[in-house]
């Protein structure tokens, strides 16, 4: 069965599902920041910025896939 995407409606304004997922993924990344620091996430990778960007893309992809 094809995955259906629901639009968020705020005060009569339709928000594209892409935006909803993007903002949710951003909040998830911000929430797990203390955990990432605790486990030393940045020290594992030579380019921490790309690693964090990839993590964001992964979370975004998982949200789209499962919600």
């Amino acid at each position, binding site marked *: 069965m094809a995955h259906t995407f629901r639009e968020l409606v705020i005060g009569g304004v339709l928000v594209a599902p892409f935006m909803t997922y993007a903002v949710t993924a951003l909040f998830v990344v911000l929430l797990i*920041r*203390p955990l990432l*620091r605790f486990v030393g996430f*940045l*020290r594992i990778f030579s380019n*921490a*910025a*790309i690693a*964090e*960007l990839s993590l964001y893309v992964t979370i975004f992809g998982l949200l789209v896939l499962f919600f």
Partner: protein
Amino acid sequence: MTLPKQVRFLPLGFPLTSWAFAIRVWLAAIVALYVSFWLPLEAPSTALITVAIVAEPTRGQALEKAVFRVIATIIGGAVSIAITGLFSQTRDLLLIAYAGWMGLCVYVAGLLDGNRAYAAVLSGYTVALVAIQQIDNPGHVFESGMMRGAGILIGIVSLTIVSDLLWAPDRHRKLVEQLADIRRRIGNYAKSAILGETTQPMESAALLAEISALRPEASSLMFESSSGQARSVAGDNAAAALVAQLHAARSLNVLPVTADKATSERIVRALERNEGELPPPTVVWRADPQGDAGTTASLAWTLKEILRRDEQVRQNLAALRTDGRPPWHWRPLIYRSHRAAVEGGIRAAIWVALAGMFLVYAGWPATSTSLAVIGALVGLGAMTPNSRATTALALVAAPIAGLLAGLLEFVVLDGVDAFTLLAIGLAPLVIGAALLISLPNRIVSALGRFILIFAVTIFSPANPQTYDGQSYVIFFLLTCVAPSLLLATQFLVPPVSQERRRCWMLMSAREEFAQGPSRDRRDEPEEEMFRDAVRIGQILSAGGNAPNNAETIEEVLSYFDQSSILRLCDDKLKVLAGGPLTALAEEVRASFSKHEPQALRAASQVLCKASPSDHVVADLPAALMVASYHIEAALGRPIHLGEAA
């Protein structure tokens, strides 16, 4: 043997880091433009301008600016809808409401610094870009706001992805270098003071100004990565500890005794340690049996304080390097001059209202563009020490940008519609301007940014590009009219002069000092020392080459010294509350506002006798003695009453 001279590779005179930054900006601009064309957006230039504005050499700074840009756009968009809803039928009231909102935003910006001030002014001129641009079509304001928001998000995402993928440098490494350099110079200052050499007040003021200028840099670290918050805290603490160390070093100038040779050498060696070396052994002071016990104790305490502060700086610099979280956080307070902010806000509202009235009665076509540019210039000028100079710089940049945009549109591209050719055609303009932005000279850097923003505004990339000569000429002229008109209004109603700002700051320093430490003080003494350092930096910057600037600086440095030591004593006295020495502590605190050295010395002796071995009050008598020497030194210094007139 002589080592071969290191050769730096500087293509066209710019370092490779500047070239890397410029190419990142160009790539981000192309990605932003491509996505805007593909969606398609109503105004693709918004995404391109966002890249031009948010472009900063390091990731943390760019991300912080981006976050504040989004927040400010949301606030500005909401206010645009409210203003349009209330005054869409009455054009004059709409303009007055816009001028009032700009004034309010400039007032708020006057109380903030860094990207927070930028967010405040952007909230103001977003109304110009959304509501005023749609003055003839109020029903379109919401859509226009949404399109602007979308363009901004695309610009930010493009720049973030390009910066991440192309290894944009992190800010914290550079900040560590800057703080370590200031630590080295404060160490040199302290060494001179320990060895009894003459130190210049302007040198201390310049160091304080330099430290306080790093405050926005430290706060931008928060956005850099998951360790950003810990780094930001370490940066704040290191900056505050540096201010406190300089204060301790300055105390040596007022003490009547100097350390003996052996002790001086030991302290100097301890200050010369690198960050990685072990902490020094505790300073053991050999009291001179011939000298005054109180004086030698105050010297010993001051030397111990210098080393303690140096150790705090070292710990926080190490934490900044290793992403460790410091166990405490000193918030870097800023000095806020409400009077200067109110005057700046009122003037901004007057400039916008006068320029708006002129444009309304001129009756030219598409003048809303000029009004929007005027709003942006008023806002950006409010973030600089001299708003009229910013407008003059924009007036220089506007014709250059117009000519470059014309060259790009009608000579380089000249009718082509392929995106690849547009991308290649934009390269010289974007890369050239970004190279100028990366220069350390603030005027040239601002000129580069203005040129890029104005050129993109005049060129207005669209899909398909119209190549309309008439539209180009109108936009070119209106972009040049905006800074000219604003400059004329700023000559009519001049901005607050630097001299007046300096007087207000000096008066506020005097008033605060006269009141003494407040009883319900909630901030740490180090945080308040940092706020005083910010004020000294602002006075130094406002003074310029004024003949009496050195005297003013000397006076505020004296207030800084006295207030800081009194706050430190006050903190130690608070510990005594509830104990057997409560009454004495209250008596000493009451004497702070009188600024009498004899009273402080008497209190110091009473405390010594009352509890000679109590560890809680161990340092207090010595600190009170140092405070008395600071006050005594200030009493012998002439007061420049003419300053506050």
